[in-house]
């Protein structure tokens, strides 16, 4: 027995020791001193746009003693990875985000540096950006993010050739026209609207616009503030009813649940003429452009989401990603270097580089560079949409804290595929 006791003690001792080490590792100081010397790490959503981020960093590193390192994290899992490392010694110094709910929990955990002191020193850090966009990263009166990359409103894209062949001369201006177009295309054997429901967030865009047009931007704001009764309101039911009508009319075909945007499925439907429309963020353009530049320039059409008669929302309201932001971690070792880097986000070079790859920064100097855009007409159209929009609602999955995302996305996809009805959707949203 004694011998067994020895074994058990050894194992227990080893386990305790290892556990102790692990725990120490977890709660280890995440303070400034443990961070690498003369290095700033930027956590970045990894995609094709990273070339510009890298260029800006190279420009910064050329003159700075503190070097910036770009850590690209694959897009789909960006938020998961960020939240997992944020409160550890390996947390990034500067991190990409969408403002709003995407940084709320970090702010609550006191991990984000308020930028108000920087702004006091250099008012341009605020004044150089469109106010409506800058506000997205303001929480409880404090600024936590500097806009970077560009604004990404959601628009109704179309294949103008398909529409012309079907005798549709203009993109639908009203909901009724959209329903009519759906019928015409369906009768011709074309999927009226491409939908990458496998990704689930493209489905959510339909909800965002329907709720905004029918009930106005107030409904979602109230829900976000905690008043869940709005989901039961008459307008909410009306919006859901209209969505159901659209799905039942065969607007998305029958196999949308097996199609994704991210693997190129739904953009290909639009480009190949198998579908007439696709509701998508402004990145649809660059996606199509990288596949077939001629198609993007000559055939791809775009319009605002149709207006809805009798709806409370302004017909010029937008939804989408108001902008992307850089925020600074509170424990960064070199706040001054971070500040100087952020100043580049309103520089002429930054705007030019972004515009050239089809992004649309929301700085006050953007307008003068629009002629140099990949497609000046598209860039100007988009810029005016954003400038004129009375309200620009941040995507629901970004406006809510990340933990709500699963519930929202599951509910919208189940509603579209008919697994839950209006009551089921309302119940799911009220659970948030």
């Amino acid at each position, binding site marked *: 027995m004694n011998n067994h006791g020895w074994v058990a003690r050894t194992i227990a001792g080893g386990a305790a020791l290892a556990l102790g080490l692990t725990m120490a590792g977890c709660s280890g100081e995440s303070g400034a001193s443990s961070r690498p010397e003369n290095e700033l790490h930027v956590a970045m959503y990894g995609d094709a746009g990273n070339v510009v981020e890298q260029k800006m960093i190279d420009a910064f590193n050329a003159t700075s003693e503190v070097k910036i390192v770009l850590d690209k994290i694959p897009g789909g899992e960006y938020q998961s990875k960020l939240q997992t490392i944020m409160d550890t010694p390996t947390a990034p110094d500067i991190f990409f985000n969408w403002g709003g709910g995407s940084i709320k929990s970090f702010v609550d955990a006191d991990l984000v540096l308020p930028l108000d002191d920087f702004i006091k020193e250099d008012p341009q850090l605020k004044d150089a950006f469109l106010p409506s966009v800058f506000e997205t990263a303001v929480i409880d009166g404090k600024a936590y993010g500097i806009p970077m990359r560009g604004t990404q409103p959601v628009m109704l894209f179309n294949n103008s050739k398909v529409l012309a062949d079907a005798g549709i001369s203009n993109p639908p201006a009203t909901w009724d026209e959209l329903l009519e177009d759906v019928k015409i295309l369906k009768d011709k054997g074309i999927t009226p609207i491409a939908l990458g429901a496998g990704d689930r967030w493209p489905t959510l865009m339909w909800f965002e616009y329907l709720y905004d047009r029918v009930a106005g931007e107030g409904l979602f704001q109230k829900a976000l503030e905690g008043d869940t009764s709005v989901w039961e309101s008459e307008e909410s039911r009306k919006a859901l009813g209209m969505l159901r009508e659209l799905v039942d009319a065969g607007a998305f075909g029958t*196999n949308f649940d*097996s199609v*994704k945007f991210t693997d190129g499925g739904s953009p290909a439907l639009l480009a190949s003429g198998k579908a007439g429309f696709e509701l998508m963020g402004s990145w649809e353009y660059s996606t199509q452009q990288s596949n077939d530049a001629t198609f993007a320039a000559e055939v791809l059409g775009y319009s605002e989401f149709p207006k809805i008669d009798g709806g409370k929302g302004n017909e010029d309201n937008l939804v989408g990603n108001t902008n992307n932001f850089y925020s600074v971690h509170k424990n960064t070792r070199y706040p001054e270097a971070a500040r100087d880097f952020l100043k580049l986000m309103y520089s002429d070079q930054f705007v030019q580089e972004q515009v050239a790859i089809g992004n649309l920064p929301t700085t006050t100097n953007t307008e003068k560079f629009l002629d140099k855009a990949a497609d000046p007409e598209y860039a100007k159209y988009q810029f005016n949409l954003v400038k004129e929009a009375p309200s620009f609602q941040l995507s629901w999955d970004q406006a809510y804290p990340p933990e709500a995302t699963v519930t929202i996305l599951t509910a919208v996809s189940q509603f579209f595929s008919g697994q839950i009805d209006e009551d089921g959707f309302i119940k799911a949203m009220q659970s948030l």
Partner: protein
Amino acid sequence: MTTTLANRRRPERAGGPEKGRPARRGGSSSSRPGFVWALPATIFFGLFALVPLVAVAVLSFTSWSGLGDPKFVGLKNWEALFEDPVMLQSLWLSLLFIALGIITQTPLSILLGVWAAGNQKNRAILSAIYFVPLLLSSAAISVLWRALLDPNFGIPGQLSWLFGDGNLLGTQTGAIAVLIFVGMWQFTPFHTLIYQGAARQIPPVLYQAASIDGAGTVRQFFSITLPQLKNSIITSVILMVVGGLTTFETVLILTNGGPGTGTTITAFHMYQEAFRRFDFGTGSAIALVLVVISTAISFAVVRVSGYDKMRSSMEGL
């Protein structure tokens, strides 16, 4: 028996030779290596299996979003887990996946393994081609099949008489079928390898004797090959059970747990709770459930099959 016991205990004694420990060299010693020999493995197992397990057990009683310190909440996560309809459904789905996986993969890999153990012409080339899926990562396999199964531009789009509108991933049955099929494509080569190795170990005298007695190929297969493969079948099934319980990447990439929650198996549910909802407490509780279930199933299989007695299939040969 006593000798073995004494031998096993011996190295644990700290005393040394004067307490009766025979000299280690000499070669005549039939003693098994002692505990010290197992130390590296034990340390690794402790560090990378037991320690995280204990940490997860502790976390399951806390509320933690990954930010700040975990907050102790008692049994709250566990109570919520038992009332969570998705959790219950996910357990049934996991069991279904395991059962379907075993049913589809075992017969196929036994046949292929026995075939690959032979020395027919072209066997080596065909086997090599057949083992290619083993070289691919699960993520690559999932992305590949996702593209191949695109309803408009993939295989279903070309074979509409078979797949209809191609909405394979839009129905629960379709999505489960896809996952089982991809799992079969991915893992059969591995189990085939096990059976190939095992089938090569079957002494040829058995077959020679059987053919003298007039047994044909089929009879030989059922009366010699299958019984001789018994231990390998058990090994393979246990691996399938444990592998099935932790299947994750294919679900994440192919179906994302959908449609709705139609393919949210327990391992995916765990990931979703921990890394998408950032509720590491609930995620840890689900992880513990998985540990308990897979341990229980493994024990049960070992017990029922008599594998724990380590009886050789070659006794008397």
